């Protein structure tokens, strides 16, 4: 019997990562790298890592990389893209980065129809700083800074980025996916590929939101975490395409 062999995509450096066991950052990195490989664009791609758990992704992707200040990745991507319109530019951002401190940069890169691809990792918490409330923390969810559960009377409601972006004319793709089983992983990869294709054809801003896990800060095992995404996150953040279509 021929077993399919596990291969590391070329666009991913063969180095150990610092991610916690059971965290889905690794899967998402691999999907992006596979898309870059399949499109043969590693040499023309510049990736931007945020402030957050993926802050050191510049050591993991084999393409040129830039580190951005907290929330500013879409502005940094804009600067690169405007100076180098034929290169591929992607950002990789957490929910605090993209939907709190960087909301303005996210929305305005989208309104400009900036030809970039944004990978938005929504883990419903601030992972890197030890599990504080994120803009995407669910109502009732316990975090370090919502020890009694997120009270919407006090802390307000979670931010639904794909829903917001679906209102914006500059958006070519706003899609929410997850990576909790082989089927959702396949869909996620296809969405990322679509985002890069829109970019290739200069057809507008693409954002792929990936519902992701944070076993360490959620206080759950990796398997429980996958179930938590399925049972708690997906009902609040439904998967699917929220907006799609070339803007130019």
């Amino acid at each position, binding site marked *: 019997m021929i077993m399919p062999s596990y291969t590391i995509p070329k666009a991913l450096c063969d180095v150990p990562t610092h991610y916690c066991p059971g965290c889905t950052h690794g899967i998402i990195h691999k999907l992006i790298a596979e898309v870059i490989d399949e499109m043969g664009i590693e040499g023309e791609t510049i990736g931007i890592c945020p402030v957050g758990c993926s802050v050191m992704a510049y050591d993991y992707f084999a393409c040129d990389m*830039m580190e*951005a*200040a907290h929330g500013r990745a879409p502005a940094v991507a804009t600067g690169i893209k405007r100076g180098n319109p034929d290169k591929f530019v992607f950002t990789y951002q957490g929910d605090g980065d993209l939907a709190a401190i960087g909301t303005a940069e996210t929305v305005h890169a989208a309104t400009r129809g900036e030809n970039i691809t944004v990978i938005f990792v929504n883990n419903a918490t601030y992972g890197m700083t030890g599990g504080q409330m994120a803009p995407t923390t669910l109502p009732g969810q316990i975090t370090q800074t919502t020890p009694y559960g997120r009270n919407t009377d006090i802390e307000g409601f979670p931010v639904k980025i794909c829903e917001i972006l679906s209102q914006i004319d500059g958006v070519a793709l706003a899609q929410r996916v997850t990576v909790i089983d082989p089927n959702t992983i396949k869909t996620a990869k296809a969405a990322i590929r679509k985002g890069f294709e829109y970019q290739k054809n200069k057809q507008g801003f693409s954002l792929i939101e990936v519902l992701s896990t944070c076993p360490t800060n959620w206080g759950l095992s990796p398997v429980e975490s996958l179930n938590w995404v399925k049972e708690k996150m997906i009902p609040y953040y439904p998967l699917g395409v929220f907006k799609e279509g070339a803007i130019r």
Partner: protein
Amino acid sequence: MSNQSSPKKHLMKGNEAIAEAAIRSGCKCFFGYPITPQTEISAYMAKRMPKVGGVYLQAESEIAAINMVYGCAGSGVRCMTSSSSPGIALKAEGISYIAGSDLPCVIINVQRGGPGLGGIQPSQSDYWFMTRALGHGDFHALVFAPASVQEMVDTVCDAFDLADKYRMPAVILADGLLGQMMEPVHFPEDYDFNKNTEKPWAANGHGNKRKHNIINSLFLQPDVLEDENFKRFKRYEIVKKNETKAEIDIEEDTELLVVAYGSVARIAKAAVDMARKNGIKAGLFRPITLWPYPEKELQKAAEKVKKVLVVEMSMGQMVEDVRISLKSRIPIEFHGRTGGIVPTPAEVFEKLKEMDGDDNA
């Protein structure tokens, strides 16, 4: 302005001259956000950049604009932003990242009065901010202080070149007066676009020809971060040695030395001329670079003088660099106006008369 090789003079506003000089210096991308009194820079860029194959982009904020500059500079493209005091304050984080990643770019600050929303009239109250604390962490930017529209042009060219050469941000510190004032300018014919423009470190796609480049200011290991800072400050030592600039207008018998920069130096010069006509032995020292500060030049110029007068449109900021340079060996007095009030030559002359009188009493 389209005839690049024209030797003729153009009558231009300071802000427009900055923009044209930047384009001729090879600036390919401009990112800004509207604010008075720098508006003409953006307006000029918006008009000209598309005609010369460049990029003009109005960002959603100064924070976004400086981060666009960071990205663009990191990809190896000559770029700039311009703003005025409150807007520069918003850029501070981004400037720190630019310096921490050793990226070259040009930042224009057409100063206005502060603190807070302050006013929109000319001011020099960002001196400390530009030379001491442009953002968090240990770093410097080159800071140029032009005093005429022509010098706006010349310092912009220098700023792009030296920023590239030393891989650091460069600031043109102007004020509302210089920005709005119209004077004849001449654009040099021999812009050398390729000077210092090899950027093998840039993150612009490795083209499968080299290892990936990383633009970054994160160094979690203390010894590595310390080493980065040591390396950067070694470079600063070279900058300090080679790049100070000042204009010195003194005579053998100068007794009163006025120190002023930017538009105030023009006013001080008029006062010095009035003083000389009235038998007061006055001279002028005008720093053109504020960082690095022309300390040695000032020491030499002040060697034989009896007193120093520092004039600024602030509550007294550069005066500290004068004190540091002269090690308080000579009495140093200060005359400042603030809030957008521009000092007159007559009031500076009065001050000189007073100082001269004290001396001869």
